[in-house]
């Protein structure tokens, strides 16, 4: 056999995805694709009113329909112990009383799940669901944020922020007071939410679900059904996009678990596209006021950011909408306020750049407006107000290459070719505009565990419960392990997406690489040391007299630096007669060292748009996105993360809007024909530039977060470019043609 060793894969290489073949060949199985033996199908029936109660539910016809096994509703659903326990505001991630499926006859929002029809085939279940007749006692609902700002509340978990003098912008030589708005946006992952649940006896349940956090799924199900950790397993290796919408346990999981309990069979529940609009979270509508003031030279003297977002009547969902404002610029006087508007809607949920995305639209639009008021180039204004340290925490940055992002981005984009006057750049019938914006996003590290095992044949298995919802985490963790252990990447297998594996945080908040990557880096480093020890202590070892410091690992071997002796991992195990060697680690999150610094990722986005002078249609010509995400672990997957953010950013800026008819409190455009996301034709060439300098503090790889940062500020960059093209400032997204006529 020829020597299998190819090239050592290193952190930073643009390695192909380890699961690419599985995904493109259809072999990767998603939550709705586990067809367990004797599985049956559940279809959720949802409410058609937004507020009130169920007076009567007639299920007789449905029960008699062909293939039907059970119709479950609030009257006959199995009791969920966690639902009886009352509100848990200590342990919950969202303040308030979580939605309790089939708990009582109350209706809190339109499209609320109120019954589950279970039948032998999906078609039979669907048909049975359509036969259920519901009579309601309807109450007057409120779903319009704008009309309900006077009912806004201060969230229990959120406080106003102030440094220096509040409202100082009012006394600035140049000041603006502006209002911005963003509509409800829906995650709309390609894969709708689905779960298959199966019980073993009365105390053990397994769910194949769509989750960003198998351990959180496990814990929430344990809590709800009062089960032991070892008796609840959440399995979710492949997720077809989630963007925050799979960071909680939702009705489809609860319904499948209850359905499986009632029928004694595995039950599969998949949501229909319209059901993902008001059942599994969404980005809430925002209404924002920004006051911004500067000296005539463009030095910021005051910013005030007041934001409202909507929430449900039963939970207070807060997001980080005013956070970028606190830290992006070096402004001495700054105050923020944040209020929630409770509506008869389901609870919103974290949505890629949750808060930062909406908040930065307001902040970065306002910076552009200020630049015009001052007659200063928008990029120059940002450079003048660069924050040399975190002005909120008063801490040095762990690393900050925002200035490099500005420079790289502007150079590549050709920002200096921009003529500042709005409407001054034109090509044929199209008005051309250039806009830019900056972004900032937290970069943190959480505790995570991992196990690494070297097997008798010298190959290595690394395990973590972490999810990979699409960013390529499984790939980069394979890569980190292969790098640390100096192995052929084909000899490394990474196992993930199962709650029985070592504990990992949820894949959200752009901290998976830093958290789980650190655990894998550490556990592989431990395994390397263990192999070095074993190489020294193996019988008749050629390295018996070596010190550990003399040894290197290379090409799957332990040996001397001069390569005169190289012992393969397989031989080391063989001579110790070991079937395998396993090590585990629990990597800590932000320790005392990290607490001395403020960790953030940064970006600068540059956009060129064209706006048709007659029809007002906006098309994006090109995008340059310059990102400081620390050291890039895999250029390919990191670049894809930027592509994803920019593509969504185009959608947010130009087309995405979930529309409700407030008379009914119900979504109108709840499908992918009417809720517009960018098509291929809407997405121009995107140039991605990485500073690619390691962060010395956050984790041993030098990586910072990448999943969300490019989206922060991006919609403002487009709005700013549209202003530059047309002289029209659109402060309410999306920027559709009718707003530009």
């Amino acid at each position: 056999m020829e020597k299998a060793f190819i090239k050592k894969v290193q952190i930073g290489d643009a390695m192909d995805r380890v699961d690419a073949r599985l995904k493109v060949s259809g072999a990767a199985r998603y939550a709705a694709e586990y067809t367990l033996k004797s599985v049956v199908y559940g279809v959720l029936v949802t409410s058609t009113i937004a507020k009130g109660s169920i007076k009567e539910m007639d299920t007789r016809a449905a029960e008699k329909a062909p293939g039907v096994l059970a119709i479950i509703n609030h009257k006959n659903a199995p009791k969920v112990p966690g639902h009886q326990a009352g509100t848990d505001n200590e342990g919950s991630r969202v303040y308030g009383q979580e939605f309790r499926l089939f708990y009582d006859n109350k209706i809190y929002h339109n499209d609320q799940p109120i019954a589950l029809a279970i039948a032998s085939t999906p078609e039979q279940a669907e048909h049975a669901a359509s036969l259920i007749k519901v009579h309601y006692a309807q109450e007057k609902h409120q779903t319009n944020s704008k009309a309900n700002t006077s009912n806004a509340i201060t969230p229990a978990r959120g406080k106003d922020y102030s440094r220096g003098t509040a409202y100082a912008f009012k006394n600035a030589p140049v000041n603006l007071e502006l209002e911005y708005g963003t509509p409800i946006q829906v995650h709309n992952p390609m894969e709708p939410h689905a779960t298959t649940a199966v019980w073993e006896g009365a105390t053990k349940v397994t769910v194949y679900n769509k989750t960003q956090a198998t351990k959180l799924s496990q814990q929430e199900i344990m809590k709800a059904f009062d089960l032991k950790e070892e008796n609840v397993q959440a399995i979710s290796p492949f997720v077809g996009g989630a963007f925050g919408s799979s960071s909680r346990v939702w009705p489809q999981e609860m319904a499948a678990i209850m359905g499986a309990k009632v029928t004694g069979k595995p039950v599969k529940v998949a949501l229909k596209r319209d059901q993902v609009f008001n059942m599994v979270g969404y980005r809430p509508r925002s209404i924002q006021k920004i006051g911004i003031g500067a000296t005539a030279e463009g030095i910021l003297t005051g910013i005030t950011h007041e934001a409202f977002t909507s929430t449900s009547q039963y939970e207070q969902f807060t997001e980080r909408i005013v956070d970028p404002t606190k830290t992006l610029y070096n402004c001495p006087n700054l105050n923020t306020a944040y209020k929630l508007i409770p509506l008869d809607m389901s609870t919103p949920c974290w949505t890629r750049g949750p808060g930062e995305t909406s908040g930065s639209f307001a902040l970065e639009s306002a910076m552009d407006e200020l630049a015009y008021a001052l007659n200063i180039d928008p990029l120059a204004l940002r450079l003048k107000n660069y924050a040399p340290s975190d002005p909120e925490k008063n801490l040095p940055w762990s690393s900050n290459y925002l200035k490099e992002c500005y420079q790289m981005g502007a150079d590549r984009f050709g920002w200096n070719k921009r003529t500042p006057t709005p409407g001054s750049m034109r090509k044929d019938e199209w008005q051309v505009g250039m806009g830019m914006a900056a972004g900032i996003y937290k970069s943190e590290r959480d505790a995570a565990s991992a196990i690494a095992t070297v097997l008798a044949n010298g190959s290595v298995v690394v395990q973590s419960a972490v999810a990979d919802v699409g960013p390529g985490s499984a790939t980069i963790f394979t890569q980190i392990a292969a790098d640390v252990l100096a192995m052929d990447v084909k000899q490394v297998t990474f196992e993930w997406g199962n709650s029985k594996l070592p504990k990992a945080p949820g894949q959200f908040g752009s901290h998976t690489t830093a958290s789980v990557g650190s655990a894998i880096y550490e556990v592989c480093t431990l395994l390397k040391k263990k192999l070095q020890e074993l190489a020294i202590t193996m019988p008749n070892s050629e390295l018996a007299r070596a010190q550990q410091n003399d040894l290197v690992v290379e090409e799957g071997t332990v040996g001397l630096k001069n390569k005169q002796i190289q012992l393969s991992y397989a031989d080391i195990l063989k001579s110790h007669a070991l079937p395998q060697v396993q090590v585990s680690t629990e990597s800590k999150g932000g320790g005392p060292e990290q607490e001395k610094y403020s960790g953030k990722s940064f970006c600068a986005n540059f956009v060129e748009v064209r706006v048709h002078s007659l029809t007002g249609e906006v098309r994006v010509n090109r995008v340059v996105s310059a990102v400081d995400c620390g050291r890039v672990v895999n250029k390919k997957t990191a670049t894809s993360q930027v592509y994803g953010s920019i593509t969504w950013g185009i959608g947010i800026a130009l087309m995405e809007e979930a529309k409700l008819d407030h008379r009914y409190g119900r979504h109108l455009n709840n499908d992918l024909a009417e809720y517009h996301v960018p098509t291929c034709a809407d997405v121009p060439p995107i140039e991605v530039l990485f500073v690619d300098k390691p962060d010395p503090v956050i984790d041993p790889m030098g990586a910072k977060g990448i999943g969300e940062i490019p989206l922060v500020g991006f919609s403002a960059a487009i709005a700013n470019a549209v202003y530059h093209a047309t002289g029209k400032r659109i402060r309410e997204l999306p920027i559709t043609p009718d707003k530009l006529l």
Partner: protein
Amino acid sequence: MRPFIYTPTSTVSAATQKLKANPHAKYLAGGTNLLDLMKEDVEKPTELVDITRLVLTEVKAITTGVNKGGITIGALGKNTDTANHPLIRQNFPLLTQSILAGASAQIRNMASNGGNLNQRTRCPYFYETSMPCNKREPGSGCGALEGINRMHAIFGWSQACVAVHPSDMCVALAALDAVVKVQGADGKERSIPFTDYHRLPGDTPQKDNTLNPGELITSIEIPINNFANTSYYLKVRDRASYAFALISVAAGVELEGTRIKQAKIALGGVAHKPWRALEAEKFLIGKEATEANFKQAAELEMKSAKPLEHNEFKIELGKRAITRALMQAMTGGKA
């Protein structure tokens, strides 16, 4: 979704007999709209008569008679094949452009020509069974009249219905003076001028067109014209692809020297049927093909528009779109 009977057929007469026998049956061709509507519980046929095996797919030149030089298009031809047929690309580029502006490549590969004519409105109130819609449930009211009606009609609407016809292809066919050939269960054939095929809502918005019950479209005929090189299909939409028109314009300009002999203009996204811009057409006869004249024609046409709460922008957009489509037509709008 309700249970239904599936009935394959292989001849026009067999198909029409099936429809005659069961008034709750529907023809199934590409299914790109009907199956969606069945899943949404909007269409509730008890039987689907599959007509996809009928031999009605041909595109051929008309070589004799008054329509010599024109073309006939089989009702079951796929939208994609029709758009890309060499005769159509060469002689009727307006039709090619309009088809390719609609839906997505995948849908066009499935969708039939006859089905394109018979597709139903995409008004969200029509789809949303928990809200009123006179088209879906006669007498229940119009949800859109005082609802979210940004996408809705500005011409020819009634208190009963403000929905628009969603097709792009039909807008071009209206401008091209096409004729719809249909056959009933009695074997009789009828020819319906395209502009009479779809109807305005009036008090009976549940009726989209003037087909008699059970009648089947067999083909569409398009007469030859002299504006293949001076025509253009403009579609203004919220995103670059796969979006229904805010407004679309099919425009053909026949010149005599520098003057306009006749202009054919139809608008999409503005009415319950493709809207022939007769006022604009009338004005342009004998005029110079200048931007100023196009603008004036557009102004005249939009004068009778009646906006709803959320679609007033369509009046200004319509003026601009008509002007732009005519200007583009003059630069030679080959597909």
